[in-house]
């Protein structure tokens, strides 16, 4: 007998679980399929969960969810091979609810907790199950084929929440293979450090945490990308992310990237005495992918990383976008159900809502910045190193008039960082008028 559900959700990450949770809560018969032996065992991220959507769905979720620390301070570093130039921000405001909607978490714990909430709401979670294909009749997606006995499952609508590789949409011919310039590889290590040592070293206490981002040659060996270090309760999440195009072109060995970052004098001190606990790798959608198109078909919605919804500009911001898209997909499905119409036209409400929301607006706005950065590889290679050099020059104590040095420095900026010089001139003109 063929079984039919109201909706099938593929992938129990933040996007899929959010959709399953809301649809189950609305009383629909939902099946949530996950290939890991429990939700989270296949998942890797840097470490900061952005929880504005989650806190709306489950108010004060942090009281029961497995969170590590709330992020009350942030730092950005420019690294030359030996030096570091940094700035940071911390705020007391971030220390009270909702904690600026930023918490370090470990996905193997968080995703499991969150999927259990969807189960509590009535969703039917099936783990250890890979979905290999969409079932298509004519133009319409009618179900999925899971790699198991009696694996053909049918539903009014399927939500592809299968993450960055988005194989389902690819196989069905709805999306192309990821382009090397539109995806980054993240390699991460979790390094254990006794809580007392960690808190003293990073100047944090209680549940407070710190998030650090690193750019420049010292961080990525000159590849387009960045590095990060986030504090958990008694461990650090440290990693390097690089755009695949840049990795392929520069012929760097990716196994060496994390070692290179960890050998920087500043980073070495931060992780001193730490013990490696796990080595991880995962892809990340990177900015300038053909955006917000093809996310709806007859009987199909694509959400989260599968739809490329990550803003990689300031830091990787993907979890809240995944949850927001999952929630909007659920709303569109409820509206489609009222009309008994699951066609692309009806489901495209999802796409419209997404475009109007912070997700669509941020991704569109930052796409330009992404392109600008892509066109300037020097931002990842020489700039951080040059700025460190200038700082060293500026701070050097010697018998030499400062004015002379400053003129020489301005000359170097003008010559070696023409775009930064341009920007500086614009700011100056703006102040002078």
């Amino acid at each position, binding site marked *: 007998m063929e079984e039919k559900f109201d909706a099938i959700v593929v992938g129990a990450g933040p996007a899929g679980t959010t959709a399953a949770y809301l649809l189950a809560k609305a009383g629909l018969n939902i099946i949530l399929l996950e290939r890991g032996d429990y939700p989270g*065992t296949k998942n890797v991220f840097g470490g900061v969960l952005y929880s504005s959507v989650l806190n709306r769905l489950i108010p004060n979720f942090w009281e029961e969810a497995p969170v590590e620390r709330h992020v009350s301070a942030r730092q950005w570093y420019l690294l030359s091979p030996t030096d570091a130039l940094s700035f940071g921000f911390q705020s007391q405001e971030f220390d009270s609810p909702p904690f600026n909607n930023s918490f370090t978490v470990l996905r193997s714990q968080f995703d499991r907790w969150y999927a259990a909430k969807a189960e509590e709401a009535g969703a039917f979670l099936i783990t250890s199950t*890979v979905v290999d294909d969409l079932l298509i009749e004519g133009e319409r997606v009618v179900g999925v084929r899971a790699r198991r006995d009696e694996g053909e499952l049918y539903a009014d609508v399927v939500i592809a929440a299968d993450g960055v590789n988005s194989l389902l949409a690819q196989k069905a011919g709805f999306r192309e293979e990821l382009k090397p310039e539109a995806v980054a590889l993240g390699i991460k290590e979790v390094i254990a450090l006794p809580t007392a040592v960690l808190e003293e070293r990073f100047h944090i206490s209680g549940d407070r945490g710190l998030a650090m981002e690193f750019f420049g040659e010292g961080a990525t060996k000159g590849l387009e990308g960045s590095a990060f270090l986030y504090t958990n309760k008694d461990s650090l999440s440290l990693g390097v992310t690089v755009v695949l195009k840049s990795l392929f072109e520069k012929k760097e060995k990716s196994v060496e990237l994390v070692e290179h970052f960890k050998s920087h004098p500043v980073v070495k001190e931060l992780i001193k005495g730490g013990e490696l606990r796990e080595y991880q790798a995962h892809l990340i959608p990177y900015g300038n992918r053909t955006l917000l198109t093809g996310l709806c078909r007859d009987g199909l919605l694509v959400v989260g990383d599968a739809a490329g919804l990550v803003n990689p500009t300031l830091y990787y911001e993907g979890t809240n976008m995944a949850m927001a898209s999952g929630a909007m997909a659920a709303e569109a499905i409820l509206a489609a159900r009222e009309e008994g119409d699951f066609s692309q036209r009806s489901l495209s409400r999802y796409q419209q809502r997404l475009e109007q929301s912070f997700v669509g607006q941020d991704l569109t706005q930052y796409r330009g910045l992404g392109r600008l950065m892509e066109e300037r590889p020097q931002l990842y290679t020489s700039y951080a190193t040059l700025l460190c050099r200038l700082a060293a020059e500026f701070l050097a104590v010697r018998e030499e008039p400062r004015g002379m040095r400053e003129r020489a420095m301005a000359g170097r900026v003008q010559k070696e960082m023409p775009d930064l010089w341009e920007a500086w001139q614009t700011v100056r003109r703006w102040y002078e008028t």
Partner: protein
Amino acid sequence: MEIADKLALNKFSVDTIPHLKIDQEKCHPCPHKNCTLVCPVSNYTQEGDRVVLSWEGCLECGTCRIACDQGSLQWQYPRGGFGIAYRLG
């Protein structure tokens, strides 16, 4: 620390059936052999004029699939419940 030592810390449930396969005929003419560089666990190594693959330490990231532009790599996820099982992802 070598990559093998790092991987020894991870929890894997290794399947006896490989989930990745190389078609040597299509792989052979590949001018760049990028897979041997980009894989974050060095699962691809060049032995003579062949690229050989070990799937046991695969983290299922997908980088090799994108790197391979010769159509010589058959890439799929391992069977449900097999492969990497992160405890601290």
